[in-house]
């Protein structure tokens, strides 16, 4: 059996019924295009979430104050106020691999400057905060460890806060009144955009946690502690050490629950990407159904083609074509239809996701692997749905086939 003439025969057979071939391939084009575009959208969403998680910083462990039960009423995480400043210092001192610790207190309040005022979030942090979150300043300088020790009335603000309060003016060096305490603005943070939860991360005022606790929020406990580990391989060990250290410090007897929660960035990332992963699978599956329908279309047309060309099959058999030759010929036709459809579908899918990301502003990500898989899958659809008609053709009796009207 010669391959070149067989390809030629397939090509001619497909060209003979141009409209029919195009419509059949269209089923595959739409199927593959939909898969490519949908998976692209899903992956794009996932990549965006991952990027946002990465913006939390690298190798970060978050320790939240635990919940507590008082008179049967359970507070949420962070409500118990079990984390003390001393806990953070102990972590800084005793857990190996720690390169940064930031004590965190959070509140929301009204801030004012001149005749403008704005309701925003106040973050009390240590000077390590900007390194841990990999959040450099766009302008000005961060507060220092000295500012933290002295609980100085200084702060840096996010882009949103800056725009809302100062408009186009340069806020650096200006006074921002928070609960009537005047804070000097040292710098403006680079914009970070929305968090995975959809919160504007730039609507923020960051100040030394000491200042926040003493002058703005009050209280003596921390909401959480951000810890950064130097080496990713040490994260798990550090997580365990932090747990045992805090249990010891909080005098928790064995068998009792922790009064705090330790989460690694990895765990948070997994939880956050789970949704987009489910979405990707779901979208891909729906698109896959259309690919399946396309495959059935190929099977249908191939069956019609086998019936129409019964005589041709008889002639070919009479002049010496074996069952396998006929099988191969029809399989090649089916695979040609599906893989040409696949290639065009891939192009359409890429184009569709481009259009979506440009006009609908959806992030899309098309990986080489999804293109390769889509192509192989479309070829496989051809083999799978072409096999039955091809086998039917190959099994024809030459005498019957020659006599077929």
């Amino acid at each position, binding site marked *: 059996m010669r391959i070149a003439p067989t390809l030629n025969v397939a090509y001619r057979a497909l060209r003979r019924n141009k409209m029919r071939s195009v419509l059949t391939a269209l089923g595959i084009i739409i199927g593959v295009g939909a898969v490519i575009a949908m998976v692209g959208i899903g992956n794009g969403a996932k990549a965006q979430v991952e990027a946002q998680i990465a913006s939390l910083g690298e190798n970060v462990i978050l320790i939240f104050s635990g919940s507590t039960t008082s008179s049967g009423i359970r507070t949420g995480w962070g409500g118990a106020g079990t984390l003390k400043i001393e806990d953070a210092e102990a972590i800084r001192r005793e857990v190996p691999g720690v390169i940064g610790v930031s004590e965190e207190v959070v509140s929301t309040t009204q801030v004012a400057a001149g005749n403008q005022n704005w309701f925003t979030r106040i973050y009390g942090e240590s000077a390590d905060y900007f390194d841990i979150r990999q959040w450099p300043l766009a302008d000005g300088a961060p507060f220092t460890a000295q500012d933290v020790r002295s609980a100085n009335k200084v702060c840096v603000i996010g882009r949103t806060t800056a725009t809302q309060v100062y408009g186009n003016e340069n806020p650096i060096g200006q006074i921002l009144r928070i609960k009537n305490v005047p804070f000097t603005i040292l710098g403006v943070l680079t914009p970070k955009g929305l968090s995975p939860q959809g919160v504007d991360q730039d609507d923020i005022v960051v100040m030394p946690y000491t200042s926040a606790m003493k002058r703005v929020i009050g209280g003596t406990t921390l909401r959480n502690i951000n810890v950064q580990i130097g080496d990713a391989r040490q994260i798990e060990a550090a997580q365990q050490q932090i747990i045992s250290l805090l249990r010891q410090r909080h005098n928790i007897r064995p068998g009792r629950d922790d009064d705090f929660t330790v989460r690694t960035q990895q765990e948070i990332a997994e939880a956050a990407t789970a949704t987009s992963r489910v979405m990707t699978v779901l979208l891909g599956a729906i698109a896959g159904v259309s690919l399946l329908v396309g495959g059935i279309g190929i099977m249908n047309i191939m069956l019609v083609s086998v019936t129409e060309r019964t005589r041709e099959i*008889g002639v070919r058999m009479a002049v*010496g074509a*074996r069952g396998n030759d006929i099988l191969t010929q029809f399989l090649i036709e089916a695979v040609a239809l599906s893989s040409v459809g696949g290639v065009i579908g891939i192009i359409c899918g890429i184009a569709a996701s481009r259009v979506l990301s440009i006009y609908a502003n959806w992030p899309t990500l098309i990986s080489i692997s999804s293109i390769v898989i889509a192509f192989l899958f479309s070829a496989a659809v051809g083999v799978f749905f072409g096999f039955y008609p091809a086998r039917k053709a190959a099994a024809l009796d030459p005498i019957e086939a020659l006599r077929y009207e």
Partner: protein
Amino acid sequence: MNNGTLVRLVDVHKVYHTGEMEVPAVRGVSLEIKRGEFVALMGASGSGKSTLMNILGCLDRPSSGQYFLDDADVSGLSRDQLAEIRNRKLGFVFQSFNLLARTSARENAELPLIYSSQHLSNTQLREKADRVLASVGLAGREDHFPSQLSGGQQQRVAIARALINEPEMLLADEPTGNLDSRTSVEIMAIFQQLNERGITIIMVTHEQDIAAYANRNVIMRDGLIRDDHLVTRRSDAKAHVQNGRDAEPI
């Protein structure tokens, strides 16, 4: 290559099963055909001549009995082995030409070579097809589609297709059935010419005057051979063609 027997059928039976019924189509045929013979196989419809032709053409296997082609028993071969025999040793010409539509004369003629075990380059394929087409008088029409050719010309393409693998035997099933009498004579002229070159021909026909171009007539009835005789007054198709041409202006 011997000059002796090409085809030997020994007590060949063929029974068709249609539901519960067993329909005997061929009921014990023994037949020898020598190389270089031109046999016309005749009989009314239902006489079993088509079934016998299918067995001779290796398209079908006998229910019982043996078929020796070129001294090899082919009665028990598999489908694929039969396909190879058809490709190598046999050429077919059909009543309805059975050319592939929208396919040039050249590509129609090339068809058996595609399934041949010998691998020829595209140029060789082309040259071979063009040569065979020229030998049946179709030089210059290699690129024509069947729809652009007359019935006689289409049958010539079919003959070229049958000849391209240089078969031992040509099997023709009512080759003139769809042709007018003049064209029929032309086709017979080609057959006689091929036969003179040594190709064995078996031709099914129900027309006496067509059978007269063969050198042996085998007549079947009810699945058996009733008569088998040499043609004593053989018609010369070439002469008839000449006469026809001469007569034309009148």
